[in-house]
């Protein structure tokens, strides 16, 4: 079930990506509507992060192309924002939350201009939106996992883009942060932005997203949530493993005891 849209915000055309000749993404072809909250869902190793990295031009493509707003990435870089996985950086780096948020403004500054008062103001506003204004001067290693994730989001907000690509923003964050983030993402959608999120948890996917991409090396489905999060398509995405999973979750659902995939947070 792959549904295409007219005038897409993002078009991925016949995309194949491999690591050292081993294909990770195979012939992915999809389009995304504007003003949507999009979830990329699939098992571990399905190529979810790879898809985002390929869209951002961080990996060489074996075949296919990506168009954003009908143009190449180079032409619209300032309208696109990327939030890497939290674990991908060294949080002991000598930087404050404000320093990190300010990095979101670097793209607008060009080669020589240094961030000044205006950039600082933008970064502070972004920190306020994620509720981190009180931690602006805090060194980033002294923040909890959820707070670090919010700082990463603030950095993306400071970019003031139209399309946001986020790699597992809900991984290892506490419930309060998860709620705060999803509220923020909804506000962003109301403001006309498109947000694409790599997501792990099937339970919450249903309420979070209005468009879902099911991925397992190949594209299984791409379309409105109601039409994609069906048992048949999920079965196809997760293979045999889902039967166990769905039985367990159904059982828990009946008991009104939602499960949630959580990773241990940082000490």
């Amino acid at each position, binding site marked *: 079930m792959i549904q295409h849209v007219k005038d897409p915000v993002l078009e991925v055309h016949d995309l194949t990506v491999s690591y050292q000749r081993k294909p990770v993404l195979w012939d992915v072809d999809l389009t995304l509507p504007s003003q949507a909250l999009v979830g990329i869902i699939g098992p571990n190793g399905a190529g979810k992060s790879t898809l985002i990295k390929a869209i951002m031009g961080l990996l060489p493509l074996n075949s296919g192309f990506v168009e954003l707003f009908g143009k190449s990435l180079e032409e619209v870089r300032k309208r696109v924002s990327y939030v890497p996985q939290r674990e991908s950086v060294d949080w002991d780096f000598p*930087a404050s939350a404000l320093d990190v948020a300010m*990095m979101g403004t670097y793209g607008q500054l060009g080669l020589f201009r240094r961030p000044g008062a205006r950039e600082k103001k933008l970064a502070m506003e972004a920190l306020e939106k994620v509720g981190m204004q009180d931690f602006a001067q805090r060194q980033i290693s002294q923040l909890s996992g959820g707070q670090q994730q919010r700082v990463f989001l603030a950095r993306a907000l400071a970019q003031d883009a139209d399309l946001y690509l986020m790699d597992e923003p809900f991984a290892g964050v506490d419930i309060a942060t998860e709620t705060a983030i999803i509220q923020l993402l909804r506000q962003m959608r109301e403001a006309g932005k498109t947000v694409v999120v790599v997501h792990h948890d099937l339970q919450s996917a249903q309420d979070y997203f209005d468009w879902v991409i099911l991925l397992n090396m190949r594209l299984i489905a791409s379309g409105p949530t109601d039409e994609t999060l069906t048992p048949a398509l999920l079965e196809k995405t997760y293979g045999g493993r889902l039967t166990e999973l769905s039985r367990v979750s159904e059982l828990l659902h009946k008991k009104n005891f939602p499960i949630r995939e959580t990773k241990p947070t940082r000490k």
Partner: protein
Amino acid sequence: MNIDAFWIIFTGSLVAICCSLLGCFLILRRMAMVGDAISHAVLPGIVLAFLFSGSREVWTMLIGAAALGVACTFLIEFFHKKAGVQADASIGVTFTWLFALGIILISVYAGKVDLDQDCVLYGEIAYVPLDLWFTESGRNLGPRTVWIIGGVLLILVLFISFFYKQLYLTSFDSAFAAAIGISTTLWYYLLMSAVSLTTVAAFESVGAILVVALMVGPPATAYLLTDDLKKMLLLSSGLGIIASAAGFYLALWLNGSVAGAISAVIGVQFTLAFVFSPSHGIIARNRKGLAAPRMAEATVEPVL
């Protein structure tokens, strides 16, 4: 303080600032030993420059050495990225065989080359005041080294102050940098060229050991004392200057090697910071009941 003492401390301080500034970025990228690698890998460059030009003119040597220094960082990156060898292993493999190549070249052309490892690797800071620069009219401009290192320092200060944001961002988060259109490869090679230039200009006069000590010691000490990269840059420069002055007088008192004494002071500074740093020292950590030092759970790959 006589004029010779002044020149030695002044040269040491200039070298210390150059090395510390770059060292801060190197240790944050987990490439601290790149300075060591470059200081060895330039040997074949110096020999080849000599064989081709037939002169021991300082500029030919510098160009030959700097070219090999950059080539060395290119190979390190190449082995790391293309062959998947760990960054530190890649550093080790690259500079040892380049150094060996230099030694072979020297031994093969021994009769024709008025060079030896000593004058390349163990330049002596105490001799700085002996190599003076005179104008045509005979005016004394001070030691030649001071002018060379001073020029390098000027280039570095301009480089870091103009491009601080690029260096900062590519060191912290290369994927995000690439996503907003800042080339991580370009800034890696510019930084490595700067390291190469500094190492080559500095070790000729103060010796390789001191260059490596200054490139790693003061930045590592400053890292224990502050959480702000700008302060870390200033602090490590300051620590380097103090080490140069204190090391000189220690050497004078012991009647020993100046480079050795400066390196020893750097070690003492690090130990003091390790024990007494208000934020990351072991005493402060024990008092706060924080057992785990930072870095302990870092599982990040070395950033390009």
